[in-house]
């Protein structure tokens, strides 16, 4: 990330370079997409060979489907975002393809509950949304116009599920005509847009007002208002919908963006303080959250109590079985985790069957995705674009950390979907939207140096 700065500062300090046509790297993107699709098809065949002893009959169809989706997305990028970062789309395709492989692999263990076909449909919808965003959104700054529309829509989406019955203890689903939708997932993107726009507009007021207390410059009460409001919404989401992960994600995203916009360590102090207060209060009041913390501190308590292993314990068993090289695709027993093995705990399957090597590779893919987002943020000049790029990337980073840390016992488990990998339509569609926006800002970031006037 530091290297990115130097490369761009050279270009910025050297105006004649802008007359040279920048390489667009679409060919590289296409090559990487082919690799990503081939890797996914290979994984799909591997599962079939390990399980049923033959290449699964749908292998060609699966490969063709994924390949066509990736190619159409690539064409859209080539047409409307020619300077976009060439790594973003291949990483998204690879993660989505790998997620489909893992879900298909778990489907073999649960013949009565097949999730891969629906996931493929949702992935198609996600890619369609990606294409729509890339084609229609000509400039990310257009989004600034919809700052308050975004936040109202986000809050509406967040509060909507309260009206619907709880599913598995959490009120985060909408059930309409047989489809389950998690509106909170879409709210993430809208909130990121709102945060970026609001902070870009008000960052001076937030940064340069306030008084010193114990050497920290605390913000004034007037600007503290929105922060408290966001904090209250997060806690409200947590208490009313019992969705620990989403509230943590929103709050973390807001603190990160606030810090980047203002550079005030005071915000981090306030943020941490509020987070600790909220966590302690909710941990006391909510048995659901309290038991999550207990599971984290004592993952094997239920075994010692004679009630069999908890989900976290089963997840740890799965990771432990994987070792360094894994059992091989299709040869693990992560299905023992039971409920949510295909969604929240999908990473345990990757850890068991692909081992520490495969798990690290997946983490690094996410890291690369986040890094490309940050790089675009660093290269952009307008504050909104910078905050939007960094915010979306941070969203992915925080989400990966919260769920991956949860299933590996690093932090208390919070129900959240692993981006692209996990079963869950809303999540896949949202992640494709995030990648689409990242493509758009990265296109602006690189395109502005190509002697073109940004529209």
């Amino acid at each position, binding site marked *: *990330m*530091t290297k990115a*700065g130097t490369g761009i500062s050279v270009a910025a300090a050297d105006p004649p370079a802008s007359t040279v046509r920048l390489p667009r790297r679409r060919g590289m993107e296409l090559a990487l997409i082919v690799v990503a699709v081939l890797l996914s098809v290979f994984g799909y065949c591997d599962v079939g060979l390990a399980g049923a002893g033959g290449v699964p009959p749908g292998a060609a169809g699966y490969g063709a489907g994924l390949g066509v989706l990736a190619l159409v997305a690539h064409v859209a990028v080539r047409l409307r975002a020619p300077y976009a970062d060439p790594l973003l789309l291949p990483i998204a395709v690879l993660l989505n393809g790998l997620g489909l492989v893992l879900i298909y692999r778990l489907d073999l263990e649960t013949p009565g509950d097949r999730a891969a076909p629906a996931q493929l449909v949702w992935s198609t919808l996600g890619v369609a949304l990606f294409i729509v965003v890339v084609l229609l959104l000509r400039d990310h700054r257009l989004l600034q116009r919809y700052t308050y529309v975004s936040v109202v829509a986000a809050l509406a989406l967040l509060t909507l599920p309260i009206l619907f019955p709880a599913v598995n203890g959490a009120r985060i689903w909408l059930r309409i005509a047989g489809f389950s939708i998690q509106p909170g997932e879409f709210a993430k993107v809208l909130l990121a847009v709102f945060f970026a726009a609001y902070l870009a507009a008000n960052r001076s007021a937030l940064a340069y007002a306030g008084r010193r207390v114990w050497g920290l410059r605390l913000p004034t009460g007037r600007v503290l208002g929105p922060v408290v409001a966001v904090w209250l919404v997060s806690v409200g989401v947590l208490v009313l919908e019992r969705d620990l992960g989403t509230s943590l994600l929103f709050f973390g995203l807001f603190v*990160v963006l606030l*810090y*980047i*916009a203002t*550079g005030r360590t005071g915000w981090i102090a306030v943020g941490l303080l509020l987070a600790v207060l909220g966590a302690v209060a909710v941990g006391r009041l909510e048995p659901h959250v309290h038991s999550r913390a207990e599971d984290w501190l004592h993952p*094997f308590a239920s*075994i010692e109590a004679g009630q*069999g*292993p908890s989900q976290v*314990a089963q997840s*740890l*068993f799965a*990771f*432990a*079985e*994987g*070792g*360094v*090289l894994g*059992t*091989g695709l299709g*040869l693990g*027993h992560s299905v*023992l985790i039971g409920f949510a093995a295909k969604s929240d705990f999908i990473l345990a399957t990757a*850890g068991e069957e692909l*081992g*520490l090597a495969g*798990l*690290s590779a997946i*983490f*690094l893919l996410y*890291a690369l995705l*986040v*890094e490309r987002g*940050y790089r675009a*943020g*660093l290269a952009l000049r307008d*504050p909104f674009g*910078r905050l939007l790029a*960094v915010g979306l*990337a*941070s969203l992915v*980073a*925080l989400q*990966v*950390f919260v769920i*991956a*840390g949860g299933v*590996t*016992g*690093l932090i208390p488990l919070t129900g959240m979907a692993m981006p692209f990998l996990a079963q869950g339509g809303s999540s896949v569609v949202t992640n494709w939207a995030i990648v689409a926006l990242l493509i758009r800002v990265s296109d602006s970031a690189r395109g502005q140096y190509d002697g073109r006037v940004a529209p």
Partner: protein
Amino acid sequence: MTRYIRHAAAFCVLLLAALLVNAARVQVVQAPSYQSNPANRRHDIARYHQPRGDILVGGEPVTGSRNTGEHLRWERTYHDGPMYAPVTGFASQAYGTTLLEDSEDGVLSGTDPVLLPLALWNGFTRARNAGGDVVTTVDRAAQRAAYRGLGARKGAVAAIEPATGRILALVSTPSYDPGLLSGNGAGAARSWRRLNRDADQPMLNRAVRQTYPPGSTFKVVTAAAALDAGVIGDVDAPTRSPAPYRLPGASTRLSNESKGCQDASLRVAFERSCNTVFAKLGVDVGVTGMAATAAGFGFNDGGLRIPFAVSPSTFDTSVDRAQLALSSIGQYNTRATPLQMAMVAAAVANGGQLRPPYLVERTTRPGGGMVAAAGSRPGRRAMQPSTAARLRELMTDVVRRGTGANAAIPGATVGGKTGTAQHGLGNSGTPYAWFVAWAQADRDLEPKVAVAVVVEDASAHRGDITGGGVAAPIAKAVMEAVLAP
């Protein structure tokens, strides 16, 4: 703003590092303890993922495996389960393993390192070896004869090949079908509860895990001790033994079931099973000599494994002379497993050499390649060869014209000894009927089989429960089955 973005990026790098370090902790550092956690079902899933190796009797498997399609996929099945249960034991997904299924579990389940031709390569590929087979020494015909002979009665049979120690038959009745316990479902749990509650203890392996007072069959040991110690020089010379015999240092008088025991020679006393003569012989030999001879036959040895453990048979060495007299006729604290008494007969038949009994001929890879041959272990001298020769003569007389006539086989020399062991408070229990014997076909150079039979049938009339009446025909059937060409 650029600086703060870099700070945030550094924070993301920190999160990534935390995830990677933690993943390494779970998957590498903690992995062994997680993998060995008893609640981790992966061990069981791997164990039952493949069919278990088989236990072979006479070249044919008496076990099998059934694909249940469940998570613990393969379940044990048994052919003639009740008949072979004292050999195989059970292999249950819920209740563990017993007997051969337990002691040969490494080979049968495929985990034994000797099955791995390339240990390192297997560790890399995580392949699991197919289960190997266990070839037993059991003789199909002898086992069937013993099982049918016991029928509905409660008892046990152990048969050995004297020259090698190969166990030819091991039967215990009433028995049970070990296949009922193979699974992990409600049916297995029901069977487990029922079998454990059953007053007849069908899961008790009476042939090796139950000790009985051996009664008169122990007189073979006492006679061997007397001959070895030189207390008896000539088997036909009269002994100076009163009848009834007052136990030394006690007022109890010991009497006989049969007549003509006063001053009887060893031959006559053996034939008529004179308690008085043998009680006095035991006292004359002394506790040291008696204990040494008993130990030579295998008494008081807690370490015998065939390869599963055998309950030690006991000869009490801290006894006064009256107790020694009773111990010498197989009462007081003298107790023996049927296998132990078969070993006594085998030692006599094998010229005084006792070969430790064993049940596993060899273990093989699935393809049939040999893994290990258990084979015969070196024998030890239980008595002098001359003593064995004279005891063979005495035992032959018992079958030819004494209490063991029911065991006579045409075309073969058979030696035996009956026993009727009193037990219970004031000898109120139904006596146990014993018969120990060996047999040598006329065409053979050496005895091919030694057998011990015990019948503890509470339902029979007291008069019928005698070694010669109930146990000898069963022994005969087993020996005929072995001798049959």
